[in-house]
């Protein structure tokens, strides 16, 4: 930051223009307004972002058209890797699991968020900031730490869940939560619920606070019950926020890697295998690099579509 590149560029004289056409072009530019100097400000960003985000992204697309084990020469296979995403049972299972996780990461958190937002809407809560800070806390704890924590909670031998069940005489229900074919996926999903509902709650209560009080007063004058009020006032006003919360949480569900890697490594069998885990395993364990790249691209496309949707909803929200 010692040498100011911008100041340097701005002192360069503007070439005098005589003929009409060129004169017209410079005339569109207010004298002294920084313009081309904008590129100088962009150089560092373009270099780093380009080299370590855009180039790898392009490279990923390129790799996805090959069958490659990471060592020997690759073989061009066209779109076959993408076909596999749909047809290969392992891949398909992973994407189906991802959809199941959407229920736990997005649907349930948004419902919980709505319950909280609905109750907060009717009352003035003292110390709400405190509750908000606590409810949001799981969002900032590293996913790896969350996973380690929940491994302990789900522990089949001395985890608090099984111990609790035994203590109240329901020892028969105790099981290896993360090692059981039937419950491993919901067990992982519930961790997601625990992480996400604070985010949904913050988004939705922020939305609730934007609803004009007069709407509630009007509903009350009309003698609406609490439930009716929620249904007629709160829910419609929160449409935008609900959409945003759903999309954000869904993206988290799709990206989910750390949690699965630490808690189950996709197991037992492939009971908790997810796309992000498939990317990792294919590229770095089974040597199907092209297929891994294709899976990653499909995942990115899904997320891209959802992010676009979220932006549209968010913008509609601000225009209202």
């Amino acid at each position, binding site marked *: 930051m010692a040498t100011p590149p911008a100041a340097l560029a701005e002192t360069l004289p503007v070439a005098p223009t005589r003929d009409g056409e060129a004169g017209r072009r410079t005339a569109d530019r207010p004298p002294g307004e920084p313009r081309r100097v904008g590129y100088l400000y962009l150089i560092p960003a373009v270099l780093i972002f380009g080299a*370590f985000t855009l180039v790898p992204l392009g490279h990923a697309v390129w790799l996805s058209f090959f069958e490659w084990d990471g060592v020997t020469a690759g073989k061009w296979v066209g779109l076959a890797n993408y076909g596999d995403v749909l047809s290969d049972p392992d891949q398909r299972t992973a994407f189906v699991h991802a959809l199941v996780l959407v229920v736990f990461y997005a649907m349930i958190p948004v419902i919980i968020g709505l319950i909280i937002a609905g109750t907060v809407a009717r009352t003035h809560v003292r110390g709400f900031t405190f509750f908000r800070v606590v409810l949001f806390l799981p969002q900032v704890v590293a996913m*790896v730490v969350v996973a380690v924590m929940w491994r*302990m909670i789900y522990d089949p031998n001395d985890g608090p869940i099984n111990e609790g069940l035994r203590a109240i005489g329901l020892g028969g229900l105790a099981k290896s939560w993360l090692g059981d074919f039937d419950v491993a996926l919901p067990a992982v999903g519930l961790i997601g619920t*625990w992480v996400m*509902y604070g985010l949904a709650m913050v988004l939705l209560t*922020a939305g609730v606070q934007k609803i004009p009080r007069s709407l509630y007063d009007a509903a009350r004058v009309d003698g609406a019950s609490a439930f009716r009020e929620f249904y007629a006032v709160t829910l419609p006003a929160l449409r935008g926020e609900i959409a945003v919360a759903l999309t954000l949480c869904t993206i988290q569900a799709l990206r989910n890697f750390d949690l699965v890697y630490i808690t189950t490594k996709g197991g037992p069998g492939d009971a908790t295998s997810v796309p992000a885990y498939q990317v990792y395993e294919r590229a770095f364990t089974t040597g199907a690099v092209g297929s891994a790249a294709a899976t990653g691209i499909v995942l990115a496309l899904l997320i891209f579509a959802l992010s676009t949707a979220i932006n549209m909803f968010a913008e509609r929200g601000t225009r209202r």
Partner: protein
Amino acid sequence: MTSRREQSLTYAVLGVFSLIALLPIVGIVFTALQEPGGGASFGSFDGLHFDNFRRAWEDGSFGQYLKSSAIVTGSVVVISTVVSILAGYAFGMMRFRFSTPLFYLFLLGLMVPMEAMIVPLYYDLRDLELTDTYWALILPQAGTSIAFGTFWMRAFFRSVPPSLVEAARIDGASSWFTLWRVLLPLAKPAVLTMVVLLFMWTWNEFLLALVMVSDESLRTAPLGLSFFLGRNSSDLTLLAAGAVIVALPVVVLYVFLQRHFIRGMVSGAVKG
């Protein structure tokens, strides 16, 4: 007016869900404070045995892991913040050819998850002989962070009244001077929010470290914890202490700057 009953219902709902959010975290902290040895179980409390933290720090090499994380996170945050301010300024306040398509490229990068790039990134950086160095952790993370930061700072600069910049221009300030002396003092809250988010995302990043680093001395805190889990899953107290150490820096920052965390994650939330 709201009835008493409704008021208590609200507090009950908030209380229950807050408790659910808090219990596992309190549980792991209690576990980390238990008497070391076989008898430990998750969440029970038998006094304050801070010795677990010392053991995790020294014997469990969490001190080393934290140092790596600090180096990586510090570098990413500093580089990305400065670079994003410059790029956001150009996109937010200047008109030049191709600015819109260029910005869309950044937006694209903002939405692409690490999972989609990790495979080629590994091979690219291996060819550059950068795997197993801090650079392999810093540069890709800086790339995605800059995408977010540019987006974030552009939004800030667009919210500044244009007359302020015009006044500075009439007063004879260069664009460089205007940025650092006129606009940046105004940008402090926006920059702080960005710094906080970049810090959290970088500190908590796991996949990149898992793929790029095999040398134990370079392991970041989350990666170190995952390896520690593989070796010592029987020693519950030590594992819990390690986990608390890994989470603590971000949580402490969160307690002090919660407004920035929440504001940023809610409004800048397009990044996953």
